[in-house]
């Protein structure tokens, strides 16, 4: 294997890993703090991608504004998801909540995806919120957009980590995740915490949607593949475990990239699924998971 091939595989793996990691932390954050498997997460990704497209193409604004538009659309959708649906389902006991919110978000995801199909049509678009050009690395060169994706993703993970570890809001989110009743007794308004978590996850989905569409293309089913991969990462890491989710996302994306190079592109996904099956057999709570512990 030549150096340039190795760099190409590593770039592909790390770029995909960055996208998977972003999709995964959004999903994992919501599960960890609400016990909610957000099946509409993929549709929020798609929404963010199209929002950035509209801001740049229809309103003629520069790409960074489009990027902010994608984030804002995701956060807003997260807030609406909370206010219109989740808030009401939370009044139910937790066992029925977990099932009902899963089914409700499946429906919301389908509705949102079809709304996008209705508004924009099914033909794919190029995402204008991206950077062109190649960056020379030693003997080869890699697309600048790939580097941007990796850096933005790392930055966002840093921001999420900082919010959770260092801010009052983050401490309240972790407290609510670890013991909802105790958090209430300490004066934490848990409804506001849930709203904040869904907005944060929505914003992450928006960013992820812009990034993933910049290396593929915009289509109404854009969010499906990253969300599926995010579920795989969550299962392997243990749901709700953020550092584990990030490690799994990069690790598995690299494995996928090497398998695709070595055995052909069609083997990438089956190998990921095989790993999931093996993990579920030997470590049902995930590689980094602990039984029945949600941790944030």
């Amino acid at each position, binding site marked *: 294997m030549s150096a340039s091939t190795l760099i190409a595989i590593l770039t592909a793996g790390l770029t995909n890993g960055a996208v998977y990691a972003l999709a995964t932390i959004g999903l994992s954050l919501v599960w960890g703090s609400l016990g909610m498997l957000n099946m509409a997460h993929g549709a929020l990704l798609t929404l963010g991608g199209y929002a950035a497209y509209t801001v740049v193409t229809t309103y003629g604004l520069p790409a960074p504004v489009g990027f902010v538009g994608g984030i804002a659309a995701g956060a807003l959708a997260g807030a609406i998801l909370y206010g219109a649906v989740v808030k009401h389902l939370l009044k139910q006991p937790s066992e029925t909540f977990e099932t009902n919110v899963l089914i409700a978000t499946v429906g919301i995801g389908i509705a949102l995806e079809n709304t996008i199909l209705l508004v924009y049509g099914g033909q794919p678009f190029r995402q204008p919120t991206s950077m062109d050009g190649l960056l020379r690395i030693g003997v080869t060169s890699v697309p600048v957009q790939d580097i941007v994706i990796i850096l933005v993703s790392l930055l966002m993970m840093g921001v999420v980590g900082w919010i959770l570890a260092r801010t*009052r809001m983050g*401490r*309240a989110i*972790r*407290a609510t995740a*670890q*013991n909802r*009743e*105790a*958090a*209430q*007794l*300490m*004066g*934490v*308004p*848990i409804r506001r915490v849930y709203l904040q978590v869904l907005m944060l996850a929505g914003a992450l989905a928006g960013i992820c949607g812009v990034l993933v569409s910049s290396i593929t293309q915009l289509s109404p089913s854009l969010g499906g593949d990253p969300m599926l991969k995010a579920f795989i990462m969550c299962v392997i890491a243990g749901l709700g475990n953020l550092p584990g989710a990030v490690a799994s996302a990069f690790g598995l994306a690299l494995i996928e990239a090497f398998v695709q190079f070595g055995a052909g592109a069609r083997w990438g996904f089956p190998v990921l699924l095989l790993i999931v099956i093996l993990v579920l057999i030997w470590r049902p709570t995930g590689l980094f998971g602990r039984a029945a*512990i949600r*941790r*944030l």
Partner: protein
Amino acid sequence: MPETLALVLTGITSGYAGPAVLTDVSLSVGRGQLITVVGPNGHGKTTLLKTISGLVRLRGGRIDLEGKSIAGLAPDVIAARGVAHVPQGDLLFPQMSVEENLLMGAYAERAKSVIAERLDEVFVRLPKLAERRKQIASTLSGGERRMVGIGRGLMMGGRVLLIDEPSLGLAPLIIEQIYLVIADLKASGRSILLVEENPARVVDLADSIHLLDNGAIVWSGPPAELMARDELLATYLGG
């Protein structure tokens, strides 16, 4: 004289789905007093404290904190008004350090200087916690966890402290230490409502004892009097 009363419950009825757990319970905690509710397990002691802090829905009656009604408010609002509830089994935040757990107690307080003051006070009263400051709560011993639970309650700086079975699941020697802390809190002038299964532990401490049986108060009076009434102890507490 309502201004000398920290907490007043008047004829409260409450419960979960289904029949009421508590019926027509009235009691009051004067400022600086330690009032104890004793009774067999499963007869509503924990529900009583949870009703005060808003975790269990109040169906009837009044709850007044320093003369103002807190009935029907959300738990986080009640906590911010000054009810510090140290729950049964501690309910710590297991993945947080001792210090982070304590800081969560002061969540409703925004002034950094006040939070630092309270933290210093907790470390003076519970010096063990200062040693364990950076340790993750889930790795502490049972006695240490109880101290974090009480310390977290103190961090809330409440007007009244509710403590639910501080002796639960601890070795006798540790229980003694915990009660020394509680005596120290009473001496510092705090108003405390304490729930306990065994009245013998609070004889020297409580200003008054209420006996809760089957969701209703069946006897109230000074602790020494309860200990002298063998028939009450035998009937309700199996002593």
